[in-house]
């Protein structure tokens, strides 16, 4: 049936297709945040999203992330808002977004007459960008053109039994339909490195996967804390490796086709692991300070949709790509039903099987790709966070699929 599934996408000039036509309004330093937020609030449109980078110091990762997000297939246009003295290379960013075939504008607050006039100019710019973006052609889009990312947040002792393996079933169906699926958070795969490496399509990729988990363990040890929140313990999880085994089941059972880093777009259908832990000696603090830092990295790798599993109950969404929330714990679902798309807790109450919930998640992916709003999207959740990091490019063994093609 999956071959027949199609929905209407936006055709981008680079050949990719989007499932949304969002205008992003980006502050290029915290000093421009208020002006930018006011533009977005006054635009009052569900498809005008606030994004940005707070730092004044230069950072290659942050620049690449901004470029990747502003040229994401779900984005139809971008307004950049600069204070004027920060390090972000605004002219290069503007040029690269325009080169991707998208309309883009830049406002520099120091040159535009300050807060009030920049807000007025920004609102007019958003209107122009919206009318340009509305001209983009709609074309049929298929599952083999879709990229789906997954993350877990607020995990508990039920996550690894219900929601996570159900997402794994959905991933298996998507990979079978030649879609691209991405799982991540190598710091939450500590303890799974050996079994995960066995699923790599080449031994060299397997070695890269083991090395990246070892890197994550070293990094978190230096930080002094594993990727384990007090709420995880409240929900019955005792150790990082217990949490890892549960998180790992989101990946399903497909072979692992590659190891990518934030901003890398997987080259062909299959399952990919996203390494989110910085390279080199630990700098800049924790790898990802909260779930949305990981979500935006999945989006920078091209994810059109995010599958977010939660046991304790997270309410977040994201800018740019819709987030579908799958609740693992039936008691949490009853408390937070208004924030959840799928109740995987039914599995624990004997009311559904993993296969049934996996099918249901797949149907939600298709519906959301077809334009239906996810619950967090409808509620206006558009969280976005981007901080300092440093990465080396991936090694030659990380994408064997690219060499086969």
């Amino acid at each position, binding site marked *: 049936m999956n071959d027949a599934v199609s929905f209407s996408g936006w055709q981008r000039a680079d050949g990719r297709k989007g499932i949304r036509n969002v205008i992003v309004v980006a502050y290029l330093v915290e000093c421009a945040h208020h002006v930018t937020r006011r533009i977005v609030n006054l635009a009052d449109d569900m498809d005008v999203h606030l994004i940005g980078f707070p730092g004044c110091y230069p950072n290659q990762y942050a620049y690449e992330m901004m470029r990747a997000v502003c040229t994401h297939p779900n984005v139809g246009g971008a307004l950049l808002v600069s204070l004027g003295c920060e390090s972000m290379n605004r002219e290069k960013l503007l040029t690269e977004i325009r080169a991707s075939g998208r309309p883009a504008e830049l406002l520099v607050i120091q040159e535009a007459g300050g807060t009030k006039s920049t807000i007025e100019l920004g609102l007019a710019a958003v209107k122009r960008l919206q009318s340009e973006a509305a001209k983009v052609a709609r074309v049929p889009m298929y599952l083999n053109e879709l990229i789906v990312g997954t993350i877990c947040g607020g995990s*508990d002792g039920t996550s690894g039994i219900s929601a996570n393996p159900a997402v794994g079933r959905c991933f298996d169906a998507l990979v079978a339909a030649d879609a691209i699926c991405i799982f991540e958070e190598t710091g939450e795969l500590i303890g*799974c490195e050996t*079994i995960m490496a066995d699923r790599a399509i080449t031994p060299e990729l397997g070695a890269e996967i083991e090395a990246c988990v070892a890197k994550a363990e070293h990094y978190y040890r230096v930080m*002094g804390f594993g990727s*384990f929140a007090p709420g995880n313990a409240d929900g019955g999880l005792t150790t990082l*490796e217990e949490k890892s085994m549960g998180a790992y089941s989101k990946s399903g059972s497909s072979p692992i086709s590659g190891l990518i880093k934030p901003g890398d777009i997987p080259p062909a259908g299959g399952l990919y692991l996203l390494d989110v832990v910085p390279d080199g000696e630990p700098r800049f603090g924790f790898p990802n300070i909260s779930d949305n830092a990981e979500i935006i990295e999945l989006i920078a790798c091209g994810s059109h949709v995010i599958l977010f599993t939660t046991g304790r109950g997270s309410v977040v969404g994201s800018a740019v790509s819709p987030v579908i929330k799958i609740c693992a714990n039936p*008691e949490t679902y009853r408390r937070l039903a208004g924030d959840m798309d799928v109740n995987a807790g039914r599995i624990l109450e004997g009311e559904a099987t993993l296969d049934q919930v996996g099918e249901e998640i797949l149907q939600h992916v298709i519906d959301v790709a077809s334009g239906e709003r996810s619950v967090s999207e409808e509620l206006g959740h558009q969280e976005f966070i981007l901080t300092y990091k440093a990465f080396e490019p991936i090694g030659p063994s990380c994408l064997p699929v690219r060499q086969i093609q």
Partner: protein
Amino acid sequence: MTQTADPVAPQHAVLSPVILLHPDDNILVCVKQIHSGDALSIDGEIITSQIDIAVGHKIARIALNTGDKVYRYGAPIGSMTDAVAKGEHVHMHNMKSDYIPSHTRSRQNKDRSES
């Protein structure tokens, strides 16, 4: 709850508030709130729970000793720091990570480790 006759429902979830995830596991996971005094069937033996156990938490499937590896999903998830009897709660008070120590809101520095 649905009826046990439902052919697609996982039977363990219907029959018991605790489930076995893998035959090699030495813990069971609570999938329905257990109250103190509730009777639990563990591998055919009836045990009376002495405490409340919340959904998502673990109990010992067999008596465990200090240093024993704890198995869930058939994989090791840490080691016991204390002995427990069959049916007792297994959590932060008697079990630890073999990788990076877990922290709670009140215990943030005691087990801090540097590599």
